[in-house]
């Protein structure tokens, strides 16, 4: 910070970060996504703690650069980014506002509590239709949809298609 100026508050900085878009899905911000785990002043240094979404998400590096640029543009020069793995990121942390933005953009938002757990009982329930996972089409709202692939255009999404309006769409799957 420039000498003599009052440093910006954490709330103000969080406000700035809420304007930084996710590089892969630019309709939602980094704070909507729930990956900013902490913003804190340690003496004169601002420490921003970020958690990765998926281990191999190629956006992670870009996100760090975007955070750094956004804060430097606001005059913060003494800045440190830290990575926090635990607790691991979950789609439950995507804000209500973020979910609405996803839907409006054409991506069905995650349905909390439906993440794969790798247990066969869960798989069998899904296949037999006894699981209650119903993904509504973000275009027409129909719940008559089917999964095309567990993995969509990015690791965080699955590919679905609507049986009523026939539009293909992404579902932001739970993790």
């Amino acid at each position: 910070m420039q000498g003599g100026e009052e440093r910006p508050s954490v709330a103000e900085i969080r406000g700035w970060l809420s304007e930084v878009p996710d590089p892969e899905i630019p309709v939602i911000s980094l704070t909507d996504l729930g990956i900013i785990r902490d913003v804190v002043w340690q003496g004169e240094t601002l420490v921003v703690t970020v958690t990765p979404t998926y281990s191999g998400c190629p956006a992670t590096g870009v996100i760090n650069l975007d955070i750094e640029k956004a804060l430097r543009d606001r005059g913060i020069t003494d800045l440190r980014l830290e990575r926090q793995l635990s607790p691991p990121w979950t789609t439950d942390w995507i804000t209500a506002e973020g979910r609405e933005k996803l839907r409006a953009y054409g991506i069905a938002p995650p349905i909390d509590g439906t993440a794969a757990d790798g247990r066969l009982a869960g798989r069998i329930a899904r296949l037999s239709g006894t699981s209650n996972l119903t993904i509504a089409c973000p275009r027409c709202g129909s719940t008559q949809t089917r999964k095309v692939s567990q993995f969509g255009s990015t690791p965080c999404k699955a590919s679905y298609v609507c049986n009523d309006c026939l539009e293909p769409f992404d579902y932001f799957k739970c993790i």
Partner: protein
Amino acid sequence: MGSAVNQAAFFEWLCRIGDNCLILGHRVSEWCGHSPVLEEDIALANQALDLIGQTQFWLGLAAEVEGKGRTADQLAYLRDAAAFRNVLLVERPNGDFGNTLMRQFLFDAWHIELLRALEKSSDARVAEIAAKAVKEVAYHLERSADLVIRLGDGTEESRARMQKALDTLYPYTGELFMADASDEAVVAAGIAPAPPSLKAAWDATVSQVLAEATLTHPGETYQHKGGRKGVHSEHLGYILAEMQFLQRAYPGATW
């Protein structure tokens, strides 16, 4: 933390888990642009990404534990074949789509049991990586199990191919459950489960999925081993020749 453990044994163990993710991730990435349908191509590429991402965590921690100033990238790109510690299963050639999916399923069914156990590791760094990776691997296992069943219980052609893949790959699964002195050291320190302790749960998953896929379990067969000690098949050399080319030809090159 794992301060009581022999650091050389801990490094060895971290290379084993990291190299499994790296070599399988590279193998799966070889499908990019070649899959039978677009959706499967994307799914394979995303799974490769998950595995390479997990590699960065594991080999990053390995480099930290080693304490010689190496990085995850240096471990991945500058070691020769004899220094790699992955099991032979993950360096098996991709073969056809069915063979790739069978290899993935046999690995995923083991990988998830390992990660579940590691979530309780006495080393907080190991537990954190495992807690992150296990969520991704749950999706890998659901997908590979689904496809093994669909292709096994499919057409005559797909069933024959899946049975052949199973018979070819099953003799490479035993190595996942073998233990040596390095394993015993990390087990004693509470860092990791004993490899044989994962066998019962793996057997249960494999038997159930193979039965649903109408495939014949190969039963007790000869089991190949060596990768975990650095004794590899010739396939690893070809993988490294491609994967490491850039850093070998242009040392230190960056984006």
